[in-house]
């Protein structure tokens, strides 16, 4: 990227931000998470709680958000979904997600988790509240949030990589024993091509196809979250078949520049245009202007899959977070170059564990994101790590035989989930003890001295169905239970509501 286009890129971000600043107090909340980490459910729960918290229907009920100060102090007077700022982006389908979670059309048996996100969507939430100082005048804060397929997030690290770098890294990643098998077709084809040979559209298409097949196979495998850019190969959106998506890594050598018209030069041009036309706009429109950030991490699924997946997850998170601008908020930065001054790392699906293990889960997440945390603290951003369940699907209890009782979680496992020989049908409730997390978080990483044997690292976090929502007299569902959603809200937006 030339320095002129860099400058232009920055200028556009600054101009957009200045326009936002003039419009009134607003906050852009970045929700970051790889695919299947629970972004959509988090956003749905967030909207449901914030819009209904101050409604008359909830007035006599128990406050579901005791830690969220503005509401606990009775200063929150309303929350509304507002028309979003960008007309070109679809609206977040909040109503559809709620009806999926509570059962479409009031049919409780049909309740299910929302489908995985296939395209970008956004919403704006306005909170009305009264300031806590003496004047107590009514104020409002608008919060802009974007939901997007988690696969796309993997593209952000590409912004800083050249075609050569990316090619070498991707090829190296496919050499690990676990992946060599599924990568065989694509590797055989690619390694046979000479990068200096003439450009050939047919070969490019074939390489891209085989490469996509390999990426899909990786994702279907246990290594679900791996570093698999480019993300649009997995979730193409409306770009399918365009030249910007018809490229693949080649065995290019370091420091060699290929002649125009060669195969490598064509691939490189397409890689660059992928960055300019796909990654950059995505970054500019949705990530460059973020004030607060929540990073959702499905650590339990990685633990389920084993140490290699844990290590992969760590790399992916660290790389993604490198793309964000963190730092203390100042007047000038608020005007022109917003920075993320608070980052919350949340281990989602904490309801799969008894709350006595939450501290250990938090320790594991803290270890997993240690590099990202260190970097953010260095520049003065505030950090917190929590175990979160945006929607709590289980209750807690003790279960066991004889005099040996274990802390268990009780819920309805999804159909097809199994522990040992038991296969659940999705209707019966069960008490599940998922195994004990290690006291020392390092133990879940493969290359640490204290790592556990596969037998010791035997966790079975089964997936549960959404809880049955309680309904008010009119039959409308009340906000679903959660774990620490209020703490997350307090950390992320609480200080802007005083």
């Amino acid at each position, binding site marked *: 990227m030339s320095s002129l286009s860099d400058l232009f890129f920055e200028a556009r971000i600054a101009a957009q931000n200045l326009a936002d600043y003039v419009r009134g107090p607003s906050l852009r909340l970045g929700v970051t998470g790889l695919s299947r980490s629970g972004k959509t459910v988090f956003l749905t729960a967030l909207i449901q709680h914030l819009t209904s918290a101050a409604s008359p229907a909830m007035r006599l009920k*128990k406050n579901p958000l*005791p*830690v969220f100060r503005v509401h606990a102090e009775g200063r929150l007077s309303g929350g509304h979904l507002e028309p979003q700022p960008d007309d070109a982006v679809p609206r977040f389908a909040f109503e559809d997600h709620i009806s999926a979670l509570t059962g479409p059309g009031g049919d409780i048996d049909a309740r299910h988790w929302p489908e995985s996100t296939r395209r970008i969507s956004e919403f704006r939430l306005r909170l009305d509240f009264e300031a806590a100082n003496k004047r107590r005048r009514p104020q409002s804060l608008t919060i802009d949030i974007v939901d997007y397929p988690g696969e796309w997030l993997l593209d952000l690290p590409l912004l800083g990589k050249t075609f050569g770098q990316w090619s070498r890294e991707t090829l190296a990643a496919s050499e690990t024993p676990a992946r060599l098998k599924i990568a065989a077709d694509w590797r055989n084809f690619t390694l046979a091509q000479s990068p200096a040979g003439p450009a050939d559209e047919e070969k490019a298409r074939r390489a891209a196809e085989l490469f996509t097949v390999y990426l899909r196979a990786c994702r279907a495998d246990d290594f679900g979250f791996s570093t698999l850019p480019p993300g649009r190969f997995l979730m193409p959106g409306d770009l399918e078949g365009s030249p910007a998506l018809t490229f693949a890594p080649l065995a290019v050598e370091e420091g060699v520049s290929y002649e125009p018209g060669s195969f490598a030069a064509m691939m490189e041009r397409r890689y660059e245009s992928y960055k300019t036309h796909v990654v950059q706009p995505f970054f500019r429109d949705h990530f460059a202007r973020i004030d607060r950030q929540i990073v959702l991490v499905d650590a339990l699924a990685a633990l389920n899959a084993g140490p290699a997946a844990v290590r992969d997850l760590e790399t992916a998170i660290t790389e993604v977070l490198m793309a964000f601008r963190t730092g203390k908020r100042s007047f000038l930065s608020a005007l022109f170059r917003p920075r993320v001054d608070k980052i919350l790392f949340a281990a989602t699906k904490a309801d799969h564990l008894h*709350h006595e293990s*939450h501290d250990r889960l938090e320790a594991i997440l803290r270890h997993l994101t240690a590099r990202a945390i260190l970097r953010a603290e260095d520049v003065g951003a505030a950090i917190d790590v929590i175990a979160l369940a945006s929607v709590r699907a289980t209750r807690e209890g003790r279960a066991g035989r004889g005099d040996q009782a274990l802390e268990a979680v009780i819920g309805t496992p999804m159909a097809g989930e199994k522990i040992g020989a038991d296969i659940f049908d999705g209707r019966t409730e069960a008490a599940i003890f998922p195994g004990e997390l290690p006291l020392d978080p390092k133990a879940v990483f493969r290359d640490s001295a204290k790592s556990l044997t596969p037998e010791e690292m035997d966790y079975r976090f089964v997936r549960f169905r959404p809880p049955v929502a309680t309904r008010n007299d009119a039959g409308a569902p009340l906000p679903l239970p959660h774990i620490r959603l209020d703490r997350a809200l307090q950390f992320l937006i609480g200080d802007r509501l005083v």
Partner: protein
Amino acid sequence: MSADRKPRAFRLDEAETIESSGVPFIEMTPDPYEAEALAAADPEEQAVEVAQKRGVVAQTLISWGGLFWSAAGGLLSLAIGLWLTHLVDDLFARSLTFGVIGLVLAALAVIALLVMAGRELFGIARQRRIAELHIGFADARARDDTAKARKLIKELAALYAARPESARARAHLAELSQDIVDGRDLIDIAERTLIEALDREAQREIAQAAKRVSVVTTIAPRAFIDILFVAAQAIRLMRRIAEIYGGRPGFLGFLKLARSVGAHLTITAGMAAGDSLLQQAVGHGLAAKVSARLGEGVMNGLLTTRVGLSAMAVCRPMPFSTSRAPGVRDVAPFLFSAEK
């Protein structure tokens, strides 16, 4: 260099397992940097804890002064006992009725004395428990320790069990203690719902006392009168604040409390030099220009406020964390507006 001082290495796990003589042993030296990092806490919070240790939670009475007073007190009670026995004997010698009346009165006096002493001890123990709660909450909040926070919250609720106006907050806390709420958040909620109401009451008391003191100083005809009045108000204020936060200081308990407040005043005087001391000097200067008596009135009011704020810090069962500790200006703004 002798043979046994050559460079070599000791393996940690070997040293731990083998315990015969001649085998290398390894002792860990405490890391001074680590200790320093652990000790570095909020200076205001440290001041409170030091002050509490000097007075309210001071464990021992064994000092030369204490020994002297105990011995002298013992002698005095022996003398009184002796005198009492003589008196009762004399009464019996005169008439049986007088003797019986005297004996009954003496017994009543002893029982009352015992009850008073019991109350005194109870008051001291209660004040100490509040101070221990304070230290415990600071620790549990720093470590986000849920189990400890739940235990402390239970004790805190028990402390205010006799106050109907806090019933709702206590019920709320009891309910949250069953829920998945982290230790730090639980403590913050307790502070917000239970303690902040008491803070407001304490601040009102301080403001009233400061107002009274400054008015009386300004209009009192004799300097002697305002010294007495300021002292009496300071004592009353300290007792009142201790009562608001759940303490029941008797005479000895009050002495301990006063020692803590004095220690806190001394420690924080230096820290407050930046704001209120300067204000005091400036304020005094300005007010003194208007009238010497008015200046003294403002000065005494400020002094009373400082005493009240120190008493608040020492008596409060948890450190200030969700809200900022109030300063002189927050509690008694009228002392400053009067100058203009």
